[in-house]
């Protein structure tokens, strides 16, 4: 592949999506905020951001008609296909369900239920936290101590595909990777240089060197 990678940031009407777009552009990618199926299909990689509640995000995804397409794309990435990055509630939505919105089905690409963080007196975790990382391409070139910005009250289960955790009351899942399906509970687009590096690693996964 040559030239500038095209990254589609899925726009389903939720919160601040512009930060993710601008961070990717800052790294030299072409990033489009889009809900257009044709654009999504021709992108080199997809990003699914998400803020707010699990239920609100899933419903918004359904309302914009992007649910099935998103699920299929995430599944494809998990099997080694086109890269896909979920951010924050974007990570949570990949799971089967969430304690936050009982009875609502998540995308179910990753096994398990998202649960309320226990053992702390303040929620959301709204702060920078130190990652404990596995050796994974997501963190290639990162500094010894990677601090990233978190805003969440619920967390995914720690599993075989967990590649980073942090400690907040208890050990909390901070990032997941399954082949080309990457997802972060923290906000890489809001985590300064450390976060930009992670996004850069994601963009190179699309097969284009910046």
């Amino acid at each position, binding site marked *: 592949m040559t030239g500038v990678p095209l990254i589609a940031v899925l726009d389903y009407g939720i919160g601040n999506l512009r*930060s993710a777009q601008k961070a990717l552009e*800052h790294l030299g990618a072409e990033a489009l905020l889009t809900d257009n199926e044709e654009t999504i299909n021709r992108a080199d990689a997809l990003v699914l951001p998400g803020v707010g509640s699990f239920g609100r995000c899933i419903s918004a995804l359904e309302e914009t008609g992007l649910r099935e397409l998103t699920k299929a794309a995430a599944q494809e990435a998990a099997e080694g296909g086109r890269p896909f990055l979920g951010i924050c509630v974007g990570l949570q939505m990949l799971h089967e369900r969430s304690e936050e919105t009982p009875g609502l089905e998540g995308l179910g690409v990753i096994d398990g239920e998202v649960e309320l963080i226990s053992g702390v007196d303040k929620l959301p975790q709204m702060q920078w936290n130190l990652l404990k990382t596995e050796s994974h391409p997501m963190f290639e070139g990162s500094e010894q101590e990677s601090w990233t910005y978190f805003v969440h009250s619920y967390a995914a289960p720690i599993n075989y595909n967990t590649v980073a955790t942090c400690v907040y009351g208890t050990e909390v899942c901070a990032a997941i990777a399954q082949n080309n399906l990457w997802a972060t509970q923290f906000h890489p687009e809001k985590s300064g240089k450390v976060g930009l590096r992670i996004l850069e690693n994601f963009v190179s996964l699309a097969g284009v060197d910046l």
Partner: protein
Amino acid sequence: MKSVRIIPCLDVDNGRVVKGVNFLDLRDAGDPVELAAHYDSQGADELIFLDIAASPQAQQTMVDVVHRTAEQVFIPFTVGGGIRSLEDARRILRAGADKVSINTAAIERPELVTELAEEFGRQCVVVAVDAKRSEKDSGKFEVFSHGGRTATGLDAKNWIQEVVQRGAGEILQTSMDKDGTLDGFDLEMLRELGRECSVPLIASGGVGNLEHLVEGVTNGGADAVLAASIFHFGDHTIPEAKKHMKEAGILVRPHR
């Protein structure tokens, strides 16, 4: 692990930073975007823009500032001042801000807090609570609106509980008695109001030196500390503040 955030606050009037900013290395220290980028590079954990003009015209200017900031600042930032409706909040958030802070609008119509939380998620909703020590009841604190000019009769503790219940994700707590004095936070107020606050609380008002930042956390129990003058005037830098806090045993994100 709980880490403490250091948050510089920029007062913006029609697109320009006010309260004398004194940085020699900036091309234009009055430009909020350039100043924000400067604080980001210094290791600030978050930023707050406060629109002090807060007129409809100034709001469009603020949207432009947010737009430009989002292109080059990759840490979280909050915008406060003049946000009175879901639409106002949407414009600011769509432009690239992470949170909106409301104060007078929440006092006039508390439902706005609920509506914002439902629409954008509670992590987006900061309620700023300006409070003064009550003259009648010692140990009580009264909420003020309109930039601290108007007494509301609301008890600060009750008010914080109400807005948290309605969906505030964070409280920005300013002591009107201490604001601008440079003699430290109102620690008693912080302790009293923070005690039953289940969401993060940012302490504001009165910081004049680095030890004040430490006290706000160790003695006041704050989750984050906001300061303006000590950073803007160049008395202290963010790395100095972090070093000082770390030496006092407080966990902060290290400056690279």
